[in-house]
């Protein structure tokens, strides 16, 4: 670790820094020009700059500081962080592009204001994946969350949106407080907030039967449980997803969830929290939460009539699958398990962007968002319907779609842990079967059911383009899935370079 901050360390922060500056630029540009296209184009093209920086960090890994950390161990630029930076930039690109038409029609802010809030939140998400210290994790989490609260409440006419914002901010603040209490206990138990030092100290003598550590773990998991909408902390998700403007909902369902998992994994694996003695109780707790989360999410999704509410429960179910993977790597951490979770997340992000693009497209054209409004969409907007159908089937995990491989991989990780998690794998398969019903129902309505009106819907260019990108992404992920895994696996040790789990 270098003793003072130099140019290399600034460069290691460059992706996040450039996203923040892009956010400022877009906000300022909005004051100067009223041309929406210029602002939007600046934001979208500007995202190539952080992407370039991220790629430069990937390519020039040797030029980084020796242990890949900067700012006194607070910034960690390892393979794991770079993977998530890339993922978040994809999310940012998709959300910005798809929300272009929606903002003008339904929101009470200008495009520049909306984009700048999203970009600043995106910077927070990127930081959440790349910080190796609890204070930074907390501040990044708040940089992520505060914009999300705002994004929930920006609808012009819908009162549900204001309600969603209040619910989100109150529950979010409460979960932050719970998380902070866990961090405070962890600091007291280990004497430090640096995750590497925490990992070292938890393996010292003080870890044997240490109830403070156990309590800290539970509080921290609970705090993150809200962010990833795991049961029983899921209550916020359906109301907020339904009430918020649809592009914001998309951003919550992919961005917030991925960032929550990024930080959760970082803190538990990097910080050695999964390996404390008494960790047995922890993975049992996680496994139970995973089981309840999947089941409740998928079963309640069957009963929904509003498509956004259905997608909220669907995303709760997907969080359940991710927690299965998390439970597995808490038992024993393996590069393969990490890869399974990351691959599942990547697929989830791309398919969810595609599915929401269809929902936003319909809302743009008709302002409707009930499941029955999708009747006959296959005839009214063939390309959007086809793309959305593809994404939904992938979310359901129908072979040979990318979602199937992601799910298979995550369940295999759990299966390989031996008999302890067999029941969870079986439950995962049952849930998969249940989920096919409600995903396929939407597809059936789009292509088989008779529409009330047979007019062609005019889809905006941005929606069509986003859908095209998402479809290409899914197909690419489907075909290259093995390649993706081996590609990541090549640097498998690099994902968690210093994390060791006995």
């Amino acid at each position, binding site marked *: 670790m270098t*003793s*003072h*901050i130099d140019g290399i360390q600034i460069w290691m*922060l460059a992706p996040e820094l450039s996203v*923040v500056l892009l956010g400022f630029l877009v*906000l300022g540009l909005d004051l100067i020009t009223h041309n929406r296209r210029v602002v939007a184009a600046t934001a979208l093209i500007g995202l190539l700059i952080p992407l370039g920086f991220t790629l430069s960090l990937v390519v020039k890994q040797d030029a980084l500081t020796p242990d890949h950390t900067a*700012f*006194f161990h*607070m*910034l960690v630029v390892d393979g794991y962080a770079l993977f998530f930076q890339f993922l978040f930039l994809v999310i940012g690109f998709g959300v910005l592009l798809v929300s272009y038409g929606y903002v003008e029609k339904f929101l*009470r*802010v200008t495009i520049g*204001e909306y984009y*700048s*809030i999203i970009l*600043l*939140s995106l*910077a*927070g998400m990127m*930081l959440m994946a790349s*910080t190796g*210290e609890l*204070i*930074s994790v*907390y*501040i*990044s989490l*708040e*940089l992520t969350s*505060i*914009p999300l*609260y*705002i994004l929930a*409440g*920006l609808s*012009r006419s819908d009162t549900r949106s204001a309600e969603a*914002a209040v619910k989100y901010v109150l529950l979010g603040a409460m979960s932050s407080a719970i998380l902070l209490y866990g961090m405070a*206990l962890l*600091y*007291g*138990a*280990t*004497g*430090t907030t640096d995750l590497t030092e925490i990992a070292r*100290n938890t393996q010292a*003598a*003080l870890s044997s*039967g*240490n*109830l*403070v*550590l*156990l*309590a800290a773990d539970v509080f921290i998991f609970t705090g993150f449980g809200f962010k990833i909408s795991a049961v029983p902390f899921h209550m916020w998700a359906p109301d907020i997803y339904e009430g918020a403007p649809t592009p914001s909902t998309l951003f919550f369902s992919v961005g917030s969830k991925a960032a929550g998992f990024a930080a959760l994994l970082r803190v538990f694996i990097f910080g050695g929290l999964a390996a404390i003695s008494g960790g047995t109780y922890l993975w049992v707790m996680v496994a139970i939460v995973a089981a309840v989360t999947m089941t409740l999410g998928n079963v309640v999704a069957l009963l929904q009539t509003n498509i956004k509410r259905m997608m909220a429960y669907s995303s709760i179910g997907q969080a359940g699958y991710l927690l299965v993977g998390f439970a597995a790597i808490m038992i024993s951490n393996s590069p393969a398990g990490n890869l399974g979770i990351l691959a599942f997340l990547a697929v989830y992000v791309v398919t969810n962007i595609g599915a929401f693009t269809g929902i936003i497209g319909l809302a743009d054209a008709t302002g409707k968002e009930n499941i029955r409004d999708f009747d006959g969409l296959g005839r009214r907007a063939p390309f959007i319907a086809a793309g959305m159908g593809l994404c939904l089937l992938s979310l359901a995990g129908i072979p040979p779609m990318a979602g199937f491989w992601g799910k298979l991989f995550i369940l295999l990780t759990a299966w390989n842990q031996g008999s302890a998690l067999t029941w969870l794998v079986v439950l995962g398969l049952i849930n998969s079967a249940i989920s096919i019903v409600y995903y396929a129902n939407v597809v059936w309505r789009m292509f088989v059911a008779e529409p009330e009106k047979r007019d062609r819907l005019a889809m905006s260019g941005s929606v069509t383009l986003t859908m095209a990108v998402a479809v290409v992404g899914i197909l690419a992920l489907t075909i290259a899935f093995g390649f993706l895994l081996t590609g990541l696996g090549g640097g498998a040790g690099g994902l968690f370079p210093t994390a060791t789990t006995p």
Partner: protein
Amino acid sequence: MTIDVPAVAFWVIAIILVGSALAVVVMPKIVHAALFLVAVFGAAAGIYVLLNAEFIAIVQVLIYAGAVTILILFAIMLTQNSMSRVSNPFSGQWWLAGLICVLLAAGIIFAVNSSPMAAGAASDALPLANAAGGTVVKLGQLLYSPFAYSYVLPFEIASVVLLVAIVGAIMIGREE
């Protein structure tokens, strides 16, 4: 017999702190609850003084007892008559929340009492209100110094957080 002044001070402040916190939660009028919240903030500042954290105490008074309280009182004023009968009612399931919280408190207190911590055993005596232990200079360096170990990264992120909050509050608050 000498009186242990810091110890007496601790008990007085702790009782005020817990009592006001309870009052915030149970007072039927929201304005009264807000006034007791000021007492909570003030008493917490007293705790920080006892723990030799003068800077935190001052920040606590300035930001919490000053700024946040004023914000909350403004919000209460602007949302008058917003509740039907009482301005600060309990929900129906308060007993369930209470049960969970009592169990949680018991669990935490048991945990900190029975486990070794890097901060020392729970039974270690703390030197209270030790005037010699000024930490302000050290804190300043730890917050911002680029040349020695410091929390400069979270410090910079926090500045962006504040900007986001300003921009967001304007977006939410402004009329159509």
